[in-house]
């Protein structure tokens, strides 16, 4: 256990924290965009699993992980359109539909994988995305090699954070976007097309969550398996609550959960005597503990979870 605090260990933890936090961050941002328009989507796990499959298939077939990411994004949007139609147009209950996605999307993914690769095939492997070092920044001593030698998707995810913050707080489009989640009636009277805005939110949500899923199979591991998402969608969901529906808050929450994940992987290697299952529990238990300590303040969009009917008074 003396090796716990060496430089090498710390740097590996930092490196893998950022890697582990990336899919969480992408998906948490997806949820943030969805909830800001008043749509609580608990189907993130489902969207991710379909994104993971689409990303894997395309990167396997073309050998190009970037096309895989693109396919994951499209797949995510496609799946989330089911949710969008049912919750926005039909005003069905959002949690129920999120749950429906969680059942539906993994079933389809498993089916497609099985039909294409056969039931008992050896694990197919796709190409992983290569890391790209950013020319000047990577030479910064200490943090340079850790933070600026990652896959492009990592940069994309972290750049989305300031973009999101500026969009929601400094632009007119962002403010009217938020108004849909706060008080859709008022937004409608100001000439904002609430229904269209909600559909846009669903597209963004599907896009980012699909990318988050595709990240798992194009940047993280090079195979697809059922249950690859492993509840990350729900951890991302808690990250949004924990981060109080802001871009920076979500980032901090995801880094915390990513750190837990990185730590448990490392601990598994260091301490072989302790049952590995106990370490694997760490991310889930930490998420719970973080939420329990924070409590749920009455924050977040006012109209989240509520269906919007134009005709209703």
């Amino acid at each position, binding site marked *: 256990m003396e090796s716990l605090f060496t430089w090498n260990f710390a740097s590996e933890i930092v490196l893998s924290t950022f890697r582990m936090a990336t899919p969480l961050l992408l998906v948490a941002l997806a949820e943030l965009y969805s909830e800001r328009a008043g749509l609580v989507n*608990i189907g993130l796990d489902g969207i991710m699993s379909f994104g993971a499959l689409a990303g894997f298939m395309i990167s396997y077939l073309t050998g190009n992980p970037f096309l895989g990411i693109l396919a994951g994004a499209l797949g995510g949007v496609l799946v989330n359109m*089911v949710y969008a139609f*049912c919750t926005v147009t*039909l*005003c*069905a*209950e959002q*949690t*129920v*539909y999120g*749950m*429906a996605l*969680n*059942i*539906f999307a993994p*079933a*389809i993914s*498993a*089916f497609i994988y*099985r*039909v294409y690769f056969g*039931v008992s095939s050896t694990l197919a492997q796709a190409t992983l995305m290569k890391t790209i070092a950013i020319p000047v920044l990577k030479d910064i001593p200490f943090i340079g090699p850790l933070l600026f030698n990652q896959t492009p998707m990592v940069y994309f995810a972290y750049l989305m954070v300031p973009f999101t913050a500026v969009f929601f707080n400094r632009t007119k489009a962002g403010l009217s976007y938020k108004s849909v989640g706060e008080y859709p009636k008022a937004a409608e009277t100001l000439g904002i097309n609430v229904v269209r805005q909600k559909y846009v939110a669903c597209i963004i949500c599907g896009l980012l969550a699909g990318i988050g899923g595709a990240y798992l199979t194009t940047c993280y591991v090079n195979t697809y398996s059922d249950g690859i998402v*492993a*509840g990350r969608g*729900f*951890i991302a*969901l*808690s990250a949004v*609550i924990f981060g109080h529906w802001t871009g920076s808050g979500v980032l901090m929450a995801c880094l915390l959960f990513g750190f837990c994940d990185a730590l448990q992987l490392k601990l598994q290697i260091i301490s072989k005597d302790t*049952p590995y*299952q*106990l370490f*694997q*529990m760490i991310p*889930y*238990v930490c*998420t*719970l503990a973080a*939420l*329990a300590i924070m*409590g*749920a*303040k009455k924050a977040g969009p006012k109209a989240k979870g509520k269906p919007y*009917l134009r*005709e*209703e008074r």
Partner: protein
Amino acid sequence: MKLGGKSENIIIPLIAVILAFLIGGVIIAALGSNPVDAVGYLVQGAFGSKTNIGATLVKVTPLIFTGLCACFAYRCGVFNLGGEGQFIMGAVTAVWVTVSWGLEGPLACAAALLLGAVAGGIWGAIPGILKVFRGLNEMIVSIMLNYVATLFMGWVYTELLRDGSVPQTFPVPDASKLGRLMPGMRATWGLVIAVLIAAGIYYFLFNTSKGFQLRAVGLNATASRYQGFNVKRYMLFSFIVSGAIAGLGGAIELVGTQFRLMSGFALGFGFDGVAIALIAQLNPLATVLVAYFFAVLRTGATTMQVGSGVPTSVIDIIQALVIIFAVAGMAFVRLPGFKQRMLNRQRGKKEE
């Protein structure tokens, strides 16, 4: 059709099932198999022989429990997605009681069932407590606890109660196993317990004042609070009972059917339960029927895969489609536009 009446509660799920099967048929045809043959194999697999009927009844038992678990909590307005974790904790407790207490016989079996329910109840109380006292989202908490329970079970079968080189627990001793309904059929008394509990829940929800209050909390928590109902207590209560139902189900599955814990135990039962409860419109008795329907699909799917080469995962898609169509259908008929149209039509008929 009467608006908000009971007919649409039956018609819509039926339409959903038919639509889902049509799409399933298209998928099967696209794979190059004959959908009619495939369904034939499916029916044969589920009802073809005494063994097959028994196999379906074995599969339906745990699904009734997780379905009732989801149903009971949602009646009180809390979404318990942790049925799987509670089911697992019940099973882990049952294996612990029967294998390491040194007890054998019916007493051990009864103790396993009782403590399994208690363990499930405790596991279900955690999201309830965090929801009521800390305001946390019960869905997230219960899902997280599923993963924790699955990992805990992994620890139990790989180390704590491991039997030899294979990662699985010791088996339940023969004397402590749950009895079978009739010789030659694998279905156990667990099925009877499941149906009795469904009936009991139905009675509680629809024929007692406490059940009425619990449903009122689920329909409108604010109004119930002003009415003087203790909303928090009902939510916590419903979570504990819901967890106990799942825990009992886990214990029954272990001492009645599986006898050992191993990798993959209870996988997907929790979400299946949620799907069943939703299709059943949260009616405990309908939950039993829908669970049976799911079990028929499951057992039939295996025969279908062998007979016509259609992978069993088609069934998963059909199930998912049923829930999507059923819930969308219910939402559709509740839309104001649709209601208005129906009202207009009724009015038109009267004027004629």
